C-alpha cells in the first residue's frame, strides 16, 4: 500500500477541490469568519443565514477554536484549532445526500472501493438554542462529516430548513494521505522542487502556544472582565433594537431605524463572550455552580440576536415586496408585535 504518495491531495488541494465542487453547485464561497468561533455553525453565515425565508447556498472553511481540546501539540489526533469546511444548503435539495457523495468522489475517494455509512447523530448546541437531526458519515470506520438537517436555531423554528454539511478537513486529509498524525499531513507541495510543507510546519506553534495560554497563562480576572464588557455591550445593543421596534410599532415613522440596526455587530460581541467562556472553562476558572449560569447568559444573547435578525429580515422582505405597490401599503396588516429581545 503506497497511498501516501505524491499523488494524494495536499491539505490545500483538498480545500480547493471541495470549494470548487460546491461553487459549481451554486454556493457562494465565503471566507472564514474573522472572530473566534468554536464551530463553523457559529459563523453568521450559518447561524444567522439559516433564519428567515431567503434561500441561500454557501461554503466556507472555518478554523474552529476549542480551548479545552488543546493538547500542546502532543496528541496526534487532537487540536485546539481545527478546520471545518462548512456547507449550508437552504433549502436542502432533494438529492442532497447524492451531492454529498459526489463531493467525496471529487476529492478522489472511489466510493466503490470504500465503505460509507450514514449513522444517526443528532446535533444540539444548547448555547445557541439550536438543534437538528442527521448523521455522522463514516468512511471505513472514520467519521468524516457531520450531516445535519437544522430544525431550530436561536430558539426559532426554521422555515425553510437548511442542510449543514461539516467536513472534518484534518481527518479527511490524514485519511487521504494515510498518515497517523495530523502534524504529518502535507499542507502544500512546491510544484517545482516537490518540497512538502506539513501541517505541523504551519500550525504546531499555534497548538503549543495557545495551549499554554488557555490552560495556564490567560489572566482569569481580566478574561472575566472582557466577558462582562462584551456581554454588556451586546445587551445594550439588543435593548436598543427592542426599543426601536417599540417606537416603530407606536407609529412615529422611524421604521428605518430597525433596518439599519447593527444586529451583526451584536452577534460578534456574543461570539466574543462564547470564546471567552471557553477560555475560562479550559482555565478551570468556572465553578460547577457558575457554569450553567454563564451558558445561560451566552444563550440569552444568541437567542435575542436571532430574534432581532429574523425580525429585521421579515421587515426588509415585507418592505421590499410592498414598494411596487405603495397604495397597498396603507392597507397591509400591522407588523406582528415583537416581544422585547434579549430577555
Amino acid at each position, binding site marked *: 500500500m503506497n497511498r501516501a504518495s505524491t499523488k494524494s491531495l495536499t491539505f490545500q488541494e483538498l480545500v480547493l477541490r471541495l470549494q470548487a465542487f460546491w461553487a459549481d453547485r451554486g454556493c457562494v464561497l465565503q471566507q472564514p469568519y474573522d472572530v473566534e468561533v468554536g464551530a463553523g455553525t457559529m459563523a453568521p453565515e450559518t447561524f444567522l443565514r439559516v433564519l428567515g425565508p431567503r434561500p441561500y447556498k454557501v461554503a466556507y472553511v472555518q478554523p474552529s477554536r476549542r480551548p479545552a481540546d488543546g493538547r500542546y501539540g502532543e496528541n496526534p489526533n487532537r487540536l485546539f484549532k481545527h478546520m471545518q469546511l462548512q456547507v449550508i444548503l437552504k433549502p436542502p435539495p432533494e438529492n442532497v445526500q447524492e451531492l454529498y457523495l459526489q463531493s467525496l468522489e471529487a476529492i478522489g475517494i472511489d466510493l466503490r472501493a470504500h465503505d460509507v455509512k450514514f449513522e444517526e447523530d443528532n446535533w444540539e448546541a444548547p448555547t445557541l438554542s439550536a438543534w437538528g437531526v442527521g448523521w455522522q458519515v463514516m468512511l471505513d*470506520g472514520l467519521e468524516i462529516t457531520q450531516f445535519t438537517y437544522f430544525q431550530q436555531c436561536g430558539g426559532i423554528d426554521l422555515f425553510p430548513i437548511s442542510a449543514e454539511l461539516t467536513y472534518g478537513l484534518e481527518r479527511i486529509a490524514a485519511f487521504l494521505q494515510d498518515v*497517523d498524525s495530523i502534524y504529518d499531513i502535507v499542507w502544500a507541495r512546491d510544484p517545482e522542487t516537490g518540497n512538502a510543507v506539513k501541517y505541523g510546519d504551519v500550525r504546531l506553534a499555534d497548538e503549543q502556544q495557545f495551549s499554554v495560554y488557555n490552560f495556564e497563562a490567560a489572566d482569569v480576572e481580566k478574561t472575566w472582565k472582557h466577558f462582562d464588557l462584551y456581554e454588556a455591550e451586546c445587551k445594550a445593543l439588543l435593548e436598543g433594537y427592542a426599543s426601536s421596534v417599540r417606537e416603530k410599532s407606536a407609529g412615529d415613522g422611524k421604521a428605518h431605524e430597525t433596518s439599519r440596526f447593527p444586529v451583526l455587530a451584536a452577534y460578534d460581541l456574543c461570539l466574543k463572550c462564547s470564546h471567552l467562556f471557553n477560555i475560562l472553562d479550559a482555565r478551570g476558572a468556572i465553578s460547577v455552580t457558575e457554569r450553567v449560569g454563564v451558558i445561560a447568559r451566552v444563550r440569552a444573547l444568541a437567542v435575542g440576536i436571532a430574534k432581532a435578525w429574523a425580525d429585521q429580515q421579515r421587515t426588509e422582505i415585507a418592505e421590499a415586496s410592498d414598494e411596487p405597490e405603495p397604495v397597498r401599503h396603507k392597507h397591509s396588516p400591522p407588523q406582528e408585535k415583537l416581544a422585547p429581545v434579549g430577555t
Partner: protein
Amino acid sequence: MPDFLLEIGCEEIPARMIDAASAELRERIATLLKRERLAGAEIRTFETPRRLAILAEGIASAQPDITEQLTGPAVTVAYKDGQPTPAAHGFAKKTGVEIAQLEIVSTPKGDCISARVTKKGRSASEILAESLPREIATIYWPKNMYWRKPTERFVRPVRWLVALIDGEVVPLEFDGIHAGNSSRGHRILSHANVSIRSGSTYVGALRDAKVLGRAEREHRIRKALDAATRTIPGARWREDKALLETVVNLTEYPSVVLGSFDAQFLSLPEEVLVTVMRDHQKYFAVDDANGKLLPHFLAVLNTDGDPQGLIRHGNERVLRARFNDARFFWQTDQKISLLDRLDLLRHVTFQKDLGTYFEKTKRVQRLCSWVSEIIKQHGQSIRPGVIHKAGALAKTDLTTELVKEFTELQGIVGGLYARAQELDSGVPEATRFAIADAIYDHYKPESTEDDVPRSLEGAVLSIGDKADTIAGMFALGLVPSGSKDPFALRRQANGIVKVIDKYNLPLRLHELMRDARAGYQRSPAERKFVDDDKFSYSVKTFFRERLEFYLKDVRGYPYDVVNAVLSAGADDVVDSIARAEALRQVLHMPEFAAIGAACKRIRNILRQAEEKGIEPAKEFESLPQSAPEEKDLAACIETNAPLVEALRKKRDYAGALRLLATTRGPVDAFFDKVMVMAEDAGVRANRLALLRTLLKEFSTIADFSEIVTEAKTQTN
C-alpha cells in the same frame, strides 16, 4: 386475489428505530385492511436503513358489496287503491329503487314496503390511496423531523414511494411524494432506479440491486463473521446481540473484514479495548479458545467486499488512533491517584439542585454504613474497611480522561485504577482488591438481565448509590412518568430490588428511602424538596410498581399472586418473594378458591356496612344470641391465629397458609347459616367485628380477594 406492496423510501433511518417502526407499519396496515374488509392471507415486512416495506398477499381487490333490506312506510300508507302514493314514490327515490322493484315485508308493526339496496364496495386502490398517508404519518419515531413543511413529519426525508396492487400503481401521495413503481437499490453498488413489476417480484428485484432483507442480512453477517474468524486457528468472535442488531440495520448488503491491531495494546484492560471496538467503532471482538482477547477485530461493511484491503486498512488506522488515545488517557490518569481525585469531585455536578459528586460521595458513604449495620445485625458478615473506602472512591473516575472519553466505562475504570494503584499504605492487597471490585461493580445491575455485584460489599455500595439518587430526585419531585425517565430511576430501582433479592438482604424499602432522604438534611437542596408525606407516598408507589415488575416479569409469578402478596405488604423484598413462593405452592388447593371468595365477600360486606354508617363492634364477644356457626368460627380463629402468627414469624408461609386453609369449613358454615346484617344492631355489630378479625388474619400473608379463581390466566 391481488398482492399489495408498499415501500417507503427514505434517507437512512436510525438503526435503533427500524425494527419497531417496521412492526408498527405492519400492524397499522393489517388493521386498516381488516377494518376496510380487504384483509388477505399474509403480511410480510421488508426493512433496510433506506426503506420500510409491506407485502400483503391475497388482499381483496375491492370491498365486498353489501346488500341491505331497507324498510319503508306501511303498505296501507304506500298504496291507495292499488296505486303508489307520494310516500311510496318518496321511498323509492330515496333508496334509488324502481317502484316496481319494491317488496313487501312483514314487521311487528304490520306489512311495510321495502327495498333491497346493494352498496357497492370501494376498490382497494381507492381506499389505500386515501388512508395510507395518515397511517404513514402517524408511525411513532423517538425523534422525527420536517424537511418541507413543519406539519409534515417523518424520521428522515421520504424520497420515494412504491405502492402497487399487483402491477397497478396506487395513486398515493405523502409529503409531496407520489407513489410509483420505481424503487432504489444500494447507494453505491447499484445505480439505476429499480423498477418493480409487482409485489411478488419485489424482493428479487431488490436483491439484484444489492439490497437484502433483515433476516438475510443477519444470516449473511453471521456467516461472514464465522468465515473471517476461521482464518485464525481456535478463534471465536464475541457474540453480542445488541451490536449484531445494530449492524444488521446499518447495512443493506453487508460483508465483513477481519482487521488487526498491534498486540502491544493488549496491555490495556480488555474492558477499554472492547468498549472502543464495540461502542465507538461497532466492531466485534475476537477471542482465542480460552476466551482471551486477540489483537483482531471484525468490521461489518455496507458493501460487497474489500478486494484491495483499503477498507481494512482504513479501519485499522482509525482503531489505532483510538487505542493510542486510550493509552494516552490511561497514562495521564495515573498521574493523579484516585485518592487525590476525591477532592476534584467538588467540581463535578451530580445534579444541578442536588450539588456535586463530592457531596453525593459523603451521603452514599453514610447511607452505606447504615445499611451495613442492619445487614450485620441480621448475621451476614461484611469485610471491614471495604465499603467505606469504595464509597469514597466510587465516583472519582468521573474526573479521569478515560471516563470523560468513554463514559460507559464509569465504575469499571475506577475499579481498574483502584487495582492498579497503591491507595493508602498499609491496606492489605486482598482488601484493596475487594475495594476495587466493589467500585468496579457498583453501577450493576444495569438492566434486568445484568448480573448483580460480585461481592456483598459491592452490593451495598450499589444499593446506597442508587437509593441516594432516587431519594434526591423524588424529593425534588422529579418522578418518572410514562416514557419520561431521564435519570433512569426505574432501572436503578429495579437494580435495588434485584440486589436485595439476590443477596437476601433484610432491608425495608421505606426505611432505606427514608435514610437516603435524611442524607440531604441541611443541604441547600432541601429548600426545593417536596414535603415528607408526598415524598413517602411517591416513593412507596414507585417501589411497589418496581417490585410488582420484578415479581412478575423477572421472577415469573402470576399476576394475581403478585397482587395478592403485595397488597399484604410491599416493603420487604425478600419477604414478599417468600410469600409469593408459598402462595404459588398452595394455590392449587380448593380451600384457597373458597377462602378467596369468602374474602371478597367479607370485603363487600364491610364496605357496604361502612357506607351505611354501620360500625362493627370493637371486638367479637360470644353473645347469648350468637349462632353456633358464629361461635365455631370465632373459636377457630382464636385457636389458629397465634399458630399462624408463629409460623409467619418463622417465615414458614406455606405452613401458615396450610393452617389457614383449615378455616374453610367454619367459614363456609358461617356464610351458609348466618345472616350478618341481622336486625338486632348488637348482633350485627358483633358479626361485623368477627368478619373484620377474620379478614385481618387472612390478609397477613396475601390479600386472597386478589386471587383469580376461575379460568386462571397467565400474564407472561
